[in-house]
């Protein structure tokens, strides 16, 4: 009798377990599939950019400026460097200040970049009369990359052990000496990560530049205002829809440069971030 009940219970448990095991199997498969599809999309995008981009690379791309729908990308590469470096240089001091002061400017991240671009258009291009120019483009990029610098700075500073700062204050150090002499050097990998990230974002931006930097197929003549300037992302957008093979090749080459740069920076910043996490273990 007792054995019979145990047998019945065992079968009941067994069948429930099998159903649940099947559900488990389904659940894991579905979540793994979700992950694999996302990874697949990533590979697909990179494959297109790298295969077509490498196909389109010729020495001319690096040595000539854009002429009509052909030529090279020299002007755009130069312009992207000028705009991105200008933007980051402008963004670093206030970005660091915000990070140091723990100011909450994350809400700027949520503002669409095109809105920032239009703000730049209204204020700098129209009201200040700078017209489409390197200065207007750099300032727009600076506003966009500011919150990234400040956020990573703040995160990195929070990781610095409190004891370090307290020891410095105890020795009579001033605010400036503690921040610039102790906290910032200790948090440097994290801060550099933020700056690299800002650089990557600046290189990849398009929409705000259309409204502030304009476009030029000539090399930059060094004027900060009243002179439009070229950049790589414009070529991707404007040239891929052209019917000419030469134009599309330039778009692919530009996409290759931009994507490669952004990927390298992302990997680099991840490595830097891993290093800076070391503090956590020591505090």
């Amino acid at each position, binding site marked *: 009798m007792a054995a019979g009940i145990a047998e019945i219970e065992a079968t009941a448990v067994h069948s429930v377990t099998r159903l649940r095991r099947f559900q488990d199997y389904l659940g894991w498969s579905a979540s793994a599939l979700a992950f694999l599809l996302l990874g697949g999309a990533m590979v697909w995008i990179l494959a297109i950019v790298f295969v077509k981009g490498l196909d389109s690379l010729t020495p001319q791309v690096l040595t000539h400026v854009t002429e009509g729908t052909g030529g090279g990308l020299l002007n755009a590469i130069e312009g992207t460097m000028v705009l991105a470096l200008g933007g980051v240089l402008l963004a670093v001091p206030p970005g660091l200040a915000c990070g140091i002061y723990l100011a909450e400017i994350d809400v700027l991240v949520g503002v669409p970049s095109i809105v920032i671009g239009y703000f730049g258009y209204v204020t700098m291009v129209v009201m200040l009369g700078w017209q489409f120019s390197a200065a207007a483009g750099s300032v727009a990029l600076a506003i966009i990359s500011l919150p990234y610098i400040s956020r990573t700075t703040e995160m990195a500073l929070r990781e610095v052990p409190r004891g370090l700062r307290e020891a410095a204050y105890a020795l009579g150090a001033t605010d400036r000496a503690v921040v610039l002499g102790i906290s910032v050097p200790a948090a440097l990998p994290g801060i550099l990560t933020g700056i690299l990230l800002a650089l990557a974002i600046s290189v*990849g931006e398009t929409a705000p530049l259309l409204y502030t930097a304009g476009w030029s197929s000539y090399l930059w003549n060094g004027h900060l205002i009243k002179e439009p300037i070229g950049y790589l992302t414009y070529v*991707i957008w404007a040239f891929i829809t052209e019917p000419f093979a030469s134009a599309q090749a330039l778009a692919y080459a530009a996409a290759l440069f931009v994507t490669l740069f952004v990927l390298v920076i992302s990997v680099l910043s*991840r490595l830097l971030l891993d290093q800076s996490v070391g503090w956590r273990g020591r505090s």
Partner: protein
Amino acid sequence: MISGGPILRGFRWRWLRNRLFSFRSLTALLASLVGFILVLMVVFLALYAWPAVRLNGTGFLTQNSWNLGNLYGNPITVHGQQILPGAEYGILFLIAGTLLSTAIALLIAVPFGVGAAMFLSEGVPPPVRPWISFFVELLAAIPSVVYGLWGYVVVIPFLGHHIFPLVVRWLGFLPFLGGPAGSGYGLFTAGFVLSLMIVPLITATLRDALVGQPPELRDGAMALGATRFEALRTVLLPAARRVLVGSTILATGRALGETMAVLMVSGNALNYLPSNIYTPISTMASFIVSQLDSALQDPTGMAVRSLAEVALVLCLISIVVNALARVLLHYQGRHLLRAF
């Protein structure tokens, strides 16, 4: 050494100078300047758009009528504003296009993002987890315009030639899925590309939250007889509900403001509402770019001011959406908001 004449001789110049120009107050000054940018942005956009706001009234949000008017006509005066004859500005189709493409993006991104986060948090050995996660999160690093390129070269022909005709044939009886299947440019394509752009935000945030749950939750559930997946689905995931909602709202904000990718795959419709998922659309953000050249042709400047009104509406919407997300995510730790 003290300048300023005999009256001020007793004043503590050095004390004041040290106060005003101390490291602390200079940092505070710079930081508050930045905090001021957002206010400046809204104020300047509003000031610039004001003539358009007065001219367009509420019809701006309720009508499908973006029309620059006769560019060769003499400007006329309406409501005290100089405009071109026949010019009117209504952006209902932009609002519809923005909201619908964002909705489709969320419908795709949320299940995939949650699935991937579940897999990454519990299905991958911890030592390799950061690097495998990083691979998916790189999706967030790819620039918008590269998504646009991929969408234009790959997704549009693929969906337009292979997928949409099949969907029309087999599922055409369902609402919004009936034909004609179109060329591949349109609402669904825009939503699909957007979903890939926002999914890393959901995956990364939710994965961090799942990994960060106290291990007692999972151990307790498993001690009660739950399998690992059941513990994840019925205990850990509900515990991270707030993070999921918060990150979804953040992703919504991102999708609402996305410009270049949408511009390149949406078909840039003007003045009509989508009737099915294949219809071309425009979003507020993409419209601001696609209309720049023609708006600059308007000698009265009203078109550019109306575009500023579009930017203002978009800015206000994203501020509200992001504030909402931030309130929800606030208690879950700020590190969850990082880009990747």
